[in-house]
């Protein structure tokens, strides 16, 4: 089954290149999304409907990456549905659309490869692949600003990934005579590793892959890229790309745990996590572009994931739950921001007034996504953040806990101020004339967000037995 989701995009690529029909573009993305979804659900239910077709040894499904794959599938399916309506509005050029499709397929392919790979080196190669694919997607609008964002993205991430490679080289030094980079072998032999080189390697890998994940001191590409990319791509970047980078950090962190260097790694993760929260709290307060605002919120949530990982135990469990919730809600948030951009034609917060009057459904989706991301009770993020705070209390980190809560409150205030102003303010007079020629949005541009929010709020109240079992399995060993 792994082969199916890894080979299908290549097949789709060939078909598209051969036939060049316009209807094929959306068809291929949708088909891939459906296949991706079915396969990952089959993995979750432990069904193998293609038992004869064994994948090569570089790819494997285990308890941890299963969840990442499932989250990616759900988000990708939603984005694919949304995309049907979006591209109609966005471009009529067949060639541009075809390039867009190629790159979306390649992007999802490389993220899937990064999540499924069972080898440190192969993960690295695929993470590199995601940079290349998404660079074009960020540059899709071909404006001065999108060029700037794409340039920063490629350059900063390439340097980050190169540094991560230095980390991998140092890891091979640390492994001594063990000549392999398979995670399984690394876990099994971790107690024998040289601690000095391992710690050095962790620093490089954390900073390098942390660049892709958007952790604070190295996050500079993230707001620009998320703000300039087309909205479905922003959703994919935020809800799946950052996760696949996070998975690699989790895997390397697990090596550190097995090697007995966990405390060192925890401190680094904790520092980076809190820096991310701090940066977001500082910048989100006065922000004037709503897509940038969402991008900063992604940095914040990645910081929370890092903190949860650093806490370990229940904190790690909370981090995985947080990851699920954040991906669903943030994807919905970004897709809704795409609707606003279509309706108002601007990314400025001040220029968007009376969203609820202008477009009722978009307005409520916007508010509901905010309620979700701010972790108000029915949202699953409430569960995860509550668990995290509880862990901090149990581990007697009162100061850290206070800092965590204060920073989160500032972030929520910053986000809430902007969202409430956009949604509930009275419509300005100058916009009154334009309302006669309302932009009509396709139904596909509402349904995906509704579904994702419903899932996120439902598992906040009731988490099915199977899902909680999966989450527990994923964090076993931390």
């Amino acid at each position, binding site marked *: 089954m792994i082969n199916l989701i890894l080979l299908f995009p290549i097949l789709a690529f060939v078909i598209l290149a051969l036939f060049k029909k316009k209807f094929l573009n959306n068809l291929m993305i949708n088909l891939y999304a459906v296949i991706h979804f079915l396969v990952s659900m089959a993995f979750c239910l432990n069904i193998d409907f293609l038992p004869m077709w064994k994948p090569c040894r570089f790819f494997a499904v285990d308890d941890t990456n299963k969840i990442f794959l499932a989250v990616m599938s759900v988000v990708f399916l939603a984005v694919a549905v949304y995309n049907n309506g979006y591209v109609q509005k966005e471009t009529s050029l067949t060639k541009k659309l075809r390039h867009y499709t190629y790159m979306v397929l390649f992007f999802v392919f490389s993220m899937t490869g990064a999540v499924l790979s069972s080898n440190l080196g192969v993960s690295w*190669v695929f993470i590199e692949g995601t940079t290349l694919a998404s660079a074009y997607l960020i540059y899709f609008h071909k404006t001065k600003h999108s*060029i700037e964002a794409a340039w920063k993205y490629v350059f900063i991430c390439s340097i980050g990934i190169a540094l991560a*490679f230095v980390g991998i080289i140092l890891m091979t030094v640390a492994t001594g005579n063990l000549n392999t980079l398979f995670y399984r072998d690394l876990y099994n032999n971790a107690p024998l590793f040289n601690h000095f080189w391992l710690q050095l390697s962790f620093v490089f890998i954390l900073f390098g892959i942390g660049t892709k994940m958007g952790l604070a001191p190295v996050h500079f590409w993230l707001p620009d890229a998320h*703000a300039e990319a087309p909205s479905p791509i922003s959703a994919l970047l935020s809800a799946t790309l950052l996760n696949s980078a996070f998975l690699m950090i989790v895997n390397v962190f697990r090596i550190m745990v097995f090697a007995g260097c966990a405390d060192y790694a925890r401190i680094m993760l904790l520092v980076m996590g809190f820096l991310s929260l701090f940066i977001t709290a500082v910048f989100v307060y*006065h922000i004037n572009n709503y897509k940038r605002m969402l991008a900063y919120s992604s940095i914040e949530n990645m910081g929370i994931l890092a903190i949860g990982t650093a806490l370990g135990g229940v904190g790690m469990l909370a981090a995985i739950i947080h990851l699920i919730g954040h991906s669903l809600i943030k994807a919905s948030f970004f897709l809704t921001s795409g609707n606003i951009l279509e309706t108002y034609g601007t990314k400025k917060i001040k220029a968007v007034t009376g969203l609820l009057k202008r477009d009722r459904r978009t307005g409520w989706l916007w508010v509901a996504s905010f309620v979700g991301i701010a972790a108000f009770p029915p949202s699953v993020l409430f569960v995860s953040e509550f668990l995290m705070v509880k862990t901090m209390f149990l581990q007697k980190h009162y100061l850290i806990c206070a800092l965590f809560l204060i920073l989160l409150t500032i972030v929520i205030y910053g986000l809430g101020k902007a969202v409430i102003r956009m949604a509930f303010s009275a419509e300005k007079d100058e916009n009154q004339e334009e309302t006669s020629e309302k932009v009509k949005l396709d139904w596909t541009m509402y349904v995906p967000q509704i579904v994702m929010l419903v899932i996120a709020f439902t598992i906040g109240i009731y988490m099915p037995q199977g899902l909680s079992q999966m989450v527990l399995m994923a964090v076993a060993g931390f």
Partner: protein
Amino acid sequence: MENIFIILLGLTMIYIAATSRLAGHINMLIAQGWLLFFVCLSGFAKEPWFNWHMISGSQAIMDNMPHIIGLLFVIVETLIVKAVVIPVFLKKVLKRTQAHRDTEANVPHFYSLFIASIILFGGFLVANIASPEFKLVDSMYFGVSLAIIITSLWLITIKHKVLSNVIGFITMENGIFLLSLSVAKEMPIIINLGVLLDIFIAVFILGMLVNEINNEFDDLEVAHLSDLKDYEYND
């Protein structure tokens, strides 16, 4: 023997730090490609499986097939990609964009030269002091590659032209390649393939972006690329 090549590699970085002509930088990239190739070759000549008589006997070649594939791969990577393809491509970009000099670096050339020398010296120092600690790492390689990586990162921050940033990125990749040679055991081939992919595509994407930037802004100054901010920006 290979120490000479490694020291020369370190010296190319000093030359890059001290000059502002981009064509000179690209020539240094060619030199680095060749030097890395020689370093690899001398590394292979020391391998126990290697002897010159092997070339005549087909059986010996068959026995050592994985090693030979590794050798061929290194030849392709260093000589063809690093010493030919990338420089030719960059020269083309240079010709089209007419950006011959990067004059307004933040740090004057004399100081650049000085700082780059200090970094290189620091690399040697680290290599010397720590060499008893390194069991699996060749200290000479390690020190110089560290110096190359740090110098490249520093050059990227002080240069003002987009193209010199790309050149800094490639020299950093060269430093990392040298670092991977310093590990006294074979790296899995998949890693080498990945690095090749990295350099190859990153350079082409960066090169294409350079072209786009040139078309859009008429000039390759990094200063144009600082419009996206959190406050007061017009979109």
